[in-house]
């Protein structure tokens, strides 16, 4: 390989490792790594040059729950929460929505047809049982718990709005474990487009940090009627 080509490869490998390469360029480079040994060897060499930098970082012991969740993901232990947990990953990376939300919207439409424009969402478990029905009209959320909700005495279910602009989730309040509850739409969420709703399991009284701290159990999309 010519000297100049190696120079170029070095520069590309470093951009790749540092994350300076984006989108299509990154994918093309990954393809090149698979196809050309010289390319991937250059990347490996630079990884070995740079990764010792991370050695200087003082270790931060992660929460023991992380090890639990890894074992759950590998199927070694059963989930510990009462409902099948959805990992944060699906909330943050994919926002994979239940296809059945659309169906639920159709079913609910007759009930709501006499009302002005409404946003609704149905929060349901992975076995397709509806846990909560949520409707939003103006600045008010009306939430109805179904009998399917698994009673939690030590914890509360907290509802979050995930803004479409990618900013941090905004708490909408605690979900009722039975019956109906009304929540007012928070000021902070005013005027923001909604990517999805999420429900996390939190200590009683809700997350103290203002961000979800427990496992995210459900996500749901909002449907406008």
């Amino acid at each position, binding site marked *: 390989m010519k000297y100049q080509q190696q120079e170029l490869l070095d520069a590309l490998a470093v951009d790749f490792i540092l*994350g300076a390469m984006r989108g299509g360029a990154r994918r093309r480079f990954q393809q090149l790594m698979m196809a050309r040994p010289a390319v991937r060897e250059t990347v490996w060499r630079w990884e070995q040059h740079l*990764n*010792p930098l*991370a050695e200087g*970082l003082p*270790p931060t012991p992660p929460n023991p729950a*992380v*090890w639990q969740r890894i074992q759950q993901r590998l199927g070694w232990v059963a989930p510990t929460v009462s409902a099948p947990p959805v990992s944060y990953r699906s909330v943050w990376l994919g926002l994979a929505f239940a296809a059945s939300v659309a169906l639920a919207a159709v079913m609910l439409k007759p009930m709501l047809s006499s009302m002005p424009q409404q946003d609704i969402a149905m929060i349901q478990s992975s076995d397709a049982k509806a846990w909560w029905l949520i409707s939003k009209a103006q600045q008010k959320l009306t939430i109805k718990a179904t009998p399917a909700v698994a009673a939690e005495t030590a914890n509360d279910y907290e509802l979050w709005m995930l803004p479409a602009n990618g900013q941090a989730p905004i708490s909408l309040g605690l979900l009722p474990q039975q019956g109906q509850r009304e929540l007012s739409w928070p000021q902070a969420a005013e005027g923001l487009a909604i990517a999805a709703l999420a429900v996390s399991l939190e200590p009683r009284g809700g997350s103290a940090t203002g961000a979800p701290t427990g496992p995210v159990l459900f996500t749901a999309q909002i449907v406008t009627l």
Partner: protein
Amino acid sequence: MEQSQQQLLQWLFATAQGNKQAFEQLYQATSGKLFSVSLHLLRRNDWAEDVLQDAYVRIWHNAGDYHAEKGSVMSWMISITRYRALDLLKSRRVKAEHLDLSEELPDEVQPGEAIGLVRDKVKLDDCMQGLADEHRQSIQLAYFNGLSHQEITAHTGSPLGSVKSWIRRGLTQLKRCLEA
């Protein structure tokens, strides 16, 4: 906790054979470092934990793909973690929003207490010390915090062209020093 490359290699080899206990030992020995790597890049506990989970699930599944040409075991695991964290950073486009740059990076990486890469690290430290301050700082901001050239520009107040050439020249010099 100090672990030799040899020990990590044994655990990783056993992991590749499906030994869960070895995988747990590997996790216990390395997760603190990898969590720091993830936390530095993402600066949010929940996302950093999420990346850590993904990284170890990958390590479990890909343990058999490791070989020495990819670097030390620790370096290989750090790369898996960093790429996962960079993906998340990109997909959330959150860098500018959540990054708190008031918390400065230590100017020098801390000595000692290393896993596996001790010799490499001592050499790297020496070579990093040989760089001009702005070259070193730009490389550290890009490596530890995943900052783009533009973000480093905003952070240091230096022109974009300078930041780009600092990183490039710094790394060229670093390579010369490391491979000497």
